[in-house]
C-alpha cells in the first residue's frame, strides 16, 4: 500500500522489539466473538490512474457543460488561480487546529485576518474564525440570542432560506422554542405590519436574511428598531456576502451570520462551505466557535493564539456555548486569500458587475409577454421571475440551450408556483442571457398561441351559433 511507510522488515523488527509474534497478536484483547471474521467487501485497491478514471467518469455525469443561473445559497463565482495555489500548500491543508501556537502562526494569522475581513464587510465589531456553513451559523446565532435574552421565542422571516429554517427547527425543537414565521409583502421584503404584530409577545430574536431568499434587500435598520423596541435582538443572515461590497451592511443588527462560500470556495454540490458569525464586542463571550486573538511572546513580539476558549466544549464540556469543535479553517483561508486578491476596489467592481448583469437579465425578461418580475424591492444579483408557463417546462427548454435557468420556487413556496429564482453572477455572459430571453420569448409565443387557440375555440363556437 503506497501510503504506508513501514516495510515488512520494519514491522517484523518492531514486533520483535515489543514482544509480539504477529500483527494479529496486537488485537488479542478484542474478544474473538466480536472480531470481524470476514474480509471487508469493498472495491479496490485501485491505482492512482484507476482512481482518476473512476472520478472522471463520475464528473462526466454532471452539469459541467451548462451555464448555471442557480444561486439560492450557493453561488458560482470565478476563483482566481492563486486561491488553490495557496490552499494546496501542505503546511496549510495538512495542519490541524492551532492548539500549539508556535507551530501554527500561519493558520492563526490568516484566521485573524479572516476575522478582520468579515468584521469589515459586515460592519460588526468582531467576527469568529468561521462555522460549518450559513445554515448552522444562522442557527448558532439564534441559540446565542436565546442565551443572551433568556427568552424562548424567535420571529423568523419566511424569506430566510427554507433549508436554513429547517436546520434551525432541528436545533431548537428540543428547547421548546416557539418559532413564528413572518410573511413577505408585495415588495418581496419582510411584511412590517405582520412583524409588529408578531413582536407583541416577548421575543428573543428577529431573524432576517438580506438579500433575502428572493434576492430582495431588507430594510434592516427599520427592522432592528422594531426588534429592539420589544427587547429582541436582530439576527441578520447574509448568504451572498459579495453584496456587501455595494450594499450597506446590517450594522443595526446584533448578530450578522451567514455563508462566505462566494469568496473562493467551490460550489461543490453543497459543501464544504464556510459559515461566519459577527457581532458586537459586548456579546463576545456568548459567541460560539473559535476565536483567534492577538498577543505578544516573551520577547514582546506580536503573535496570535486561540483565545476565550473557556466558552468552548473542550474546556466547558456540557456547559459550552456550542458543541462545535472545529471551524472551517481551510475554507476560511480560501475566503481570506480571495478577498485579499480582489481587495477594496476589485470586490466593489465585481459586485457592480453582478448587479449590472442581474439587472440586465431581469429587464430583458420583464419585456417578455407572460413573464413578470413580481417583487419591487431593490436586489443584488438574484431576483424572482414569473415564468411564462410552467416552471418545469421553461427550465426544460432552457436546459436544451445548456442553461440551468434557476431554482423553481414552487416546492419551497406553494403560492409561487411557476416562479423561478434566477441568479446572475459575473460567470454568465451576455450571450447566454440573451439566449435565455430568447427561450422565454419562444415559450411565451407558444403559450400565447396555445392559450389563444384554447380561448378562441369557444368564441368561435359561440359566433357560429
Amino acid at each position: 500500500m503506497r501510503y504506508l511507510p513501514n516495510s515488512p522488515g520494519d514491522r517484523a523488527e518492531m514486533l520483535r522489539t515489543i514482544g509480539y509474534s504477529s500483527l494479529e497478536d496486537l488485537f488479542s484483547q478484542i474478544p474473538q466473538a466480536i472480531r470481524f471474521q470476514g474480509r471487508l467487501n469493498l472495491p479496490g485497491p485501485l491505482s492512482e490512474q484507476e482512481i482518476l478514471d473512476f472520478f472522471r467518469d463520475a464528473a462526466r455525469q454532471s452539469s459541467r457543460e451548462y451555464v448555471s443561473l442557480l444561486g439560492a445559497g450557493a453561488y458560482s463565482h470565478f476563483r482566481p488561480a492563486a486561491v488553490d495555489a495557496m490552499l494546496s500548500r501542505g503546511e496549510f491543508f495538512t495542519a490541524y487546529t492551532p492548539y500549539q501556537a508556535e507551530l501554527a502562526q500561519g493558520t492563526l494569522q490568516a484566521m485573524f485576518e479572516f476575522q478582520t475581513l468579515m468584521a469589515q464587510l459586515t460592519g460588526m465589531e468582531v467576527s469568529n474564525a468561521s462555522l460549518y456553513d450559513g445554515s448552522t451559523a444562522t442557527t448558532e446565532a439564534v441559540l446565542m440570542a436565546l442565551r443572551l435574552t433568556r427568552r424562548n421565542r424567535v420571529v423568523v422571516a419566511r424569506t430566510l432560506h427554507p433549508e436554513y429554517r429547517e436546520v434551525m427547527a432541528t436545533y431548537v425543537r428540543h428547547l421548546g422554542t416557539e418559532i413564528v414565521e413572518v410573511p413577505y409583502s408585495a415588495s418581496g421584503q419582510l411584511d412590517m405590519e405582520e412583524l409588529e404584530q408578531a413582536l407583541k409577545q416577548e421575543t428573543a430574536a428577529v431573524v432576517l436574511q438580506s438579500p433575502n431568499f428572493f434576492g430582495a434587500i431588507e430594510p434592516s435598520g427599520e427592522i432592528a428598531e422594531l426588534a429592539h423596541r420589544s427587547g429582541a435582538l436582530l439576527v441578520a443572515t447574509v448568504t451572498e456576502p459579495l453584496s456587501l461590497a455595494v450594499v450597506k451592511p446590517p450594522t443595526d443588527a446584533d448578530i450578522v451570520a451567514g455563508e462566505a462560500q462566494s469568496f473562493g470556495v467551490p460550489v461543490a454540490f453543497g459543501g464544504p462551505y464556510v459559515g461566519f458569525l459577527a457581532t458586537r464586542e459586548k456579546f463576545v463571550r456568548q459567541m460560539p466557535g473559535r476565536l483567534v486573538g492577538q498577543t505578544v511572546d516573551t520577547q514582546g513580539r506580536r503573535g496570535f493564539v486561540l483565545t476565550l476558549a473557556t466558552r468552548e466544549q473542550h474546556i466547558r464540556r456540557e456547559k459550552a456555548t456550542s458543541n462545535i469543535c472545529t471551524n472551517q479553517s481551510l475554507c476560511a483561508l480560501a475566503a481570506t486569500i480571495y478577498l485579499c486578491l480582489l481587495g477594496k476596489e476589485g470586490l466593489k467592481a465585481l459586485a457592480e458587475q453582478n448587479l449590472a448583469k442581474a439587472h440586465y437579465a431581469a429587464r430583458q425578461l420583464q419585456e417578455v409577454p407572460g413573464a413578470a418580475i413580481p417583487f419591487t424591492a431593490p436586489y443584488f444579483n438574484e431576483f424572482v421571475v414569473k415564468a411564462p408557463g410552467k416552471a418545469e417546462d421553461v427550465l426544460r427548454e432552457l436546459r436544451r440551450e445548456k442553461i440551468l435557468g434557476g431554482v423553481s420556487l414552487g416546492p419551497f413556496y406553494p403560492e409561487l408556483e411557476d416562479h423561478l429564482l434566477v441568479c446572475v453572477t459575473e460567470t454568465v455572459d451576455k450571450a447566454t442571457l440573451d439566449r435565455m430571453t430568447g427561450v422565454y420569448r419562444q415559450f411565451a409565443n407558444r403559450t400565447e398561441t396555445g392559450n389563444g387557440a384554447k380561448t378562441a375555440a369557444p368564441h368561435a363556437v359561440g359566433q357560429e351559433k
Partner: protein
Amino acid sequence: MKDQIRHARTHVTRNEDLIFERSSPGKSGVDLSPLDVPAVPASEILGKEFYRAEIPGFPEVSELEVIRHFTRLSTWNYGVDTGLYPLGSCTMKYNPRINEVVARLEGLATDHPYAPAELAQGCLRVLYETAQCLKEITGMDAVSLQPAAGAQGELSGILMIQACLTDRGNPRKYILIPDSAHGTNPASVTTSGYQVRPLKSDTHGSIDLAELDRAMTEEVAGLMLTNPNTLGIFEVRIREICDLIHQRGGLVYMDGANMNALVGVARPAEFGVDVMHLNLHKTFTTPHGGGGPGSGPVAVRDFLEPYLPSPTIERAADGTYQLNDNRPKSIGRVRAFYGNFGMAVRALAYILANGGEGLLQTTQDAVLNANYVMQQLRDTYDLPYDEPCMHECVLSDRRQAVRGVHTGDIAKRLIDYGFHPYTTAFPLIVQGALMIEPTESASKEELDEFIEAMRAVAEEIEEDPEFVLKAPHATRISRLDEATAARRPVLRWKE
C-alpha cells in the same frame, strides 16, 4: 543534550505583516473581464438607504504580494507533510494528493446542489458509494453524510435516539457519558436537550460495569461511548455493556473518532452499537485544513434508518440516484444541502486506493506504531493504565511534574526537536496526560527519532528543568501570553 537543538528544524523565518499593513490604495490582485452588459449606477439602483460606497480598511494588494504573504505564513505552520504529528485523538495521517486532484475535477467541484438530479448523477453516485463503503466498514445498515463534522454527527445521532425512544413512548432524560470522553460528547448531548450523567471509569480505564449497572435506570436514554476509548484501550466487555443498555430499554451511541483502530478488525454493529459517527478527516484522510472542514457521517442500525437526517440518497431500480426528502420520521435537516460533499469525494478516493486489504494493513500499522511508542517510552514516562493499547497510548508527566515540568512544557520542548507535540492534558482522567497517536503514516525510523527526542527531553528535565520550561527555543516566536489575550481580547486589526 541541549546541543541537539542544532539539529532541530528551525521555524525562524522572515517577519510578515498583516495583509492590512501591506495595503496601499489603487492596487488589486485581480483584473476583471470587461463588462458585456450596460453598467448600472449602483448608487441609484440601491438608493441612499442601501448603497455602500466603500468598505473601510479593506486591503489593496497585488497578486504577487498575496502569494508571498500566504506563502510566508504557510512556512510558520507545521503539517503532516512537514513531519510526525502524533496529536492524540486527531489521527493526523497522510492526506493523499490524488484526493485533492479528484475533488477539484470540473463537474464534481462545480455542480450546484440544486442542479436537477439527472444532471448530478456523478455527485449523487459519489455520495451513495461513500455511504455504501462506510456501511460495510461499520457493519451498520444506513448512513447519512449530511453532518458537517464529528460534533454534528454526535448531535444527529443523539437526536435520532431521542426520536426513536419518543416513538417507543418515552424519550427519557439522561445520557450516560464516561469521564474519559471528548468534550464534544457532553456538549452535543446538552444541545440535544438531554442531560449528561458522567460515568466513572474503572481502574483499567474502562467502563465500570457495576457503576453502569447502578446508573442505567429507566430515566436513562442511553450510553455514549468511544471505543477504543480516549486512553486508546478497547472496551473488552463492550458486548455486555451494550446488552445491559438494551435490556433496560436504552440505545448505544459510539463516537467513531477512534475508528482508525478498528477498520477491518471489528465492526461496531457486531458488538452492539446502534448509532455512531465517523470522522472522515481522521480515519479517511480528508485533510484537517488547519481546523476544518471536517465531515461526520452518521451510521445507524436498520430500526433507526427512518430517523436519519433528510434528505437521503437512494438508488432506483434503474440504477439512477435520487434524493429522498419524503421522510416523515426524520430528525430533519442538520445542515443545508447534503453535507460536506468534497470530503466524501476524498474519503471515497482513499477507500478505493486501499480496498479492504489495504485498510486492514493500515489499521494494523496504526496499532503497531502506537504500541511500539508505548513500550519504548514506558520506562521514561509514567504509564497510568498498563493495558495493551490500540491506535494511541496515554502516558503521564507524573515523574517530570516532580521537577516542576508538565505535559504542556514537554510538548513545547518537543517542538525544538522538530516534532509536532502529542495532545496535552487529555483525557481529563489522567493527571498531566501525554496522548500520543502516531498513526500508520509514521515510519519506524521517524518513531525512533521521536522516542529518542522524548527521552532526551526527560533527561533535560532532570538536568535543567528551567531550560525546558522556557521552550520552545527554536521557533520564530517564543511562548505567547495567552492570559492577556483572553483578558483583553484583540480579535481584529484596526486602522
